[in-house]
């Protein structure tokens, strides 16, 4: 069992993190190069960080980057470890981690629906939640809900009962 400090030292020694810090008790964030992410996750998985809670995507539109966050947890260390990487927003392409956690294939499909990120190696990239969606992926920051609604639907006046 490691505490947060030991974990940080351990990761610094074994991997090559761009940034790593303890956010608060039981919560550590590490940022990896995107070429090292899959091998890094594979390594962490073998080091008891085998519970993949989910994959989040954050649109940092000002930096023109997407941030993918893999939330891992270790039942031994009792630490939440968020492993992050940043990818180019224009290309929006990354590799799948389906071979490490099969369940990730659906999380990747979800991100593909809402952010338009392609995951190479994941052969099933069909729409999961949305249906026949031809617009900009809706969770991107430049998708404006109000504008879309104005464009897509006619506004109607509602006259309530007198």
């Amino acid at each position, binding site marked *: 069992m490691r505490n947060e400090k030991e974990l940080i030292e351990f990761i610094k020694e074994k991997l090559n993190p761009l940034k790593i810090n303890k956010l608060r008790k039981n919560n550590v*964030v590490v940022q990896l190069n995107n070429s090292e992410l899959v091998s890094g996750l594979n390594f962490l998985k073998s080091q008891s960080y085998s519970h993949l809670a989910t994959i989040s995507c954050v649109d940092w539109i000002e930096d023109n980057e997407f941030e993918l966050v893999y*939330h891992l947890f270790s039942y031994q260390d009792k630490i939440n470890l968020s492993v992050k990487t940043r990818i180019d927003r224009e290309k929006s392409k990354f590799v799948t981690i389906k071979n490490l956690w099969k369940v990730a294939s659906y999380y990747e499909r979800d991100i593909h629906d809402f952010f338009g990120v392609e995951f190479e190696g994941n052969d099933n990239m069909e729409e*999961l*939640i949305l249906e026949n969606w031809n617009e900009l992926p809706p969770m991107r920051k430049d998708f404006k809900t109000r504008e879309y609604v104005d464009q897509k639907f006619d506004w109607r006046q509602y006259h309530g009962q007198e």
Partner: protein
Amino acid sequence: MDKSKMTEMFFGPNHPGVPGNYGINYYYEGDTVIEAEPNAGHLHRGFEKLMEEREWIKNTPLVCRICVMEPDINEMVYAMGYEAIGEIEVPERAKYIRSIILELARIQAHIFSIGGNCGAIGLYTAMQWGVLARDYILDIFEEITGGRVYHIYIRPGGVRHDIKDETFKKILDLLDDLENNRLPDVQKLIFENPTAQKRWKDTAILNQEDALRLGVTGPSLRATGLDHDVRKLMPYGAYDKVDFDVPVGHNSDAWTRMKLKRDEIFQSIKIIRQLINNIPDGPVTVDLGNALKYKIPKGEAYVKVESARGEYGYYMVSDGGLKPYRVHVRGTSTPLGLYGVEALLPGTRIEDVPVWAHSLGICPPEFDR
């Protein structure tokens, strides 16, 4: 695989055996499911996008609507995320009150879930009794918060207002009533019922290896022999100040999960009694200033709590503004409801598909949020 010999079946999106508007498309041969695929998307309401466009406080009435069964859990985890990023310390009394509310919510969710599982095997009387037992708890919620299902009570910084001593007394009376009248009824009607035993035993098996591989948590994981519970692993609220056990089962089937839920109700009763007897005095919320101008520094947090069905997590990002930059909801049943259907449902008999979905706690609104 020769699909010409198989028949395709659409289970849902509108089906009494489905917990919510969500479908499973499967191929079957004889009466065994051979291949299955989740059909989500019928419930999508765009919560995450909506949350980015509302001030911090305005999301409190929104998050509780993500999952009908777990409104308080959602409020709690949202508040915890806000407090974690803003480094806000909640008063002791508020922690106790939050834990009391969460445990009451767990009892109602478990009773409702046991009832729902009976509905899935055709024991409709038991289902109605479950709904009735839950209603008594909703009465308490109505008295405390004004709302029966959605309470909007736990908010960043504490809880909305204090609970009166009379109400605590009512809660204790309710627990006595549950323990002495309702739960023995449930025991006789459901757990000593040969139909329920026959249908639940050795049905919907989820073994330990699969559970860990998928990231399944809660009673479904504990039914496989592990005692992982977020309340013990990473205590939040006042759970580090109470003494309780985590029931564990070993057969990994629907029957074991149901028994665990029943046992957890008794543990929750024990927790609430301890909390009410030891509750400290003091304020129930910290002053965060004008509610519409809530602001926390730049930062991020992955927070999680133990809901009635397992880990409920939020990933929250703040850019220092008046609104959240990103909130990502990790519902408890996300791994099972999506990938689990594809990987684990094949091999189940058609009649057991509702048992599979209900006993594993599939709640579509939380992955189709």
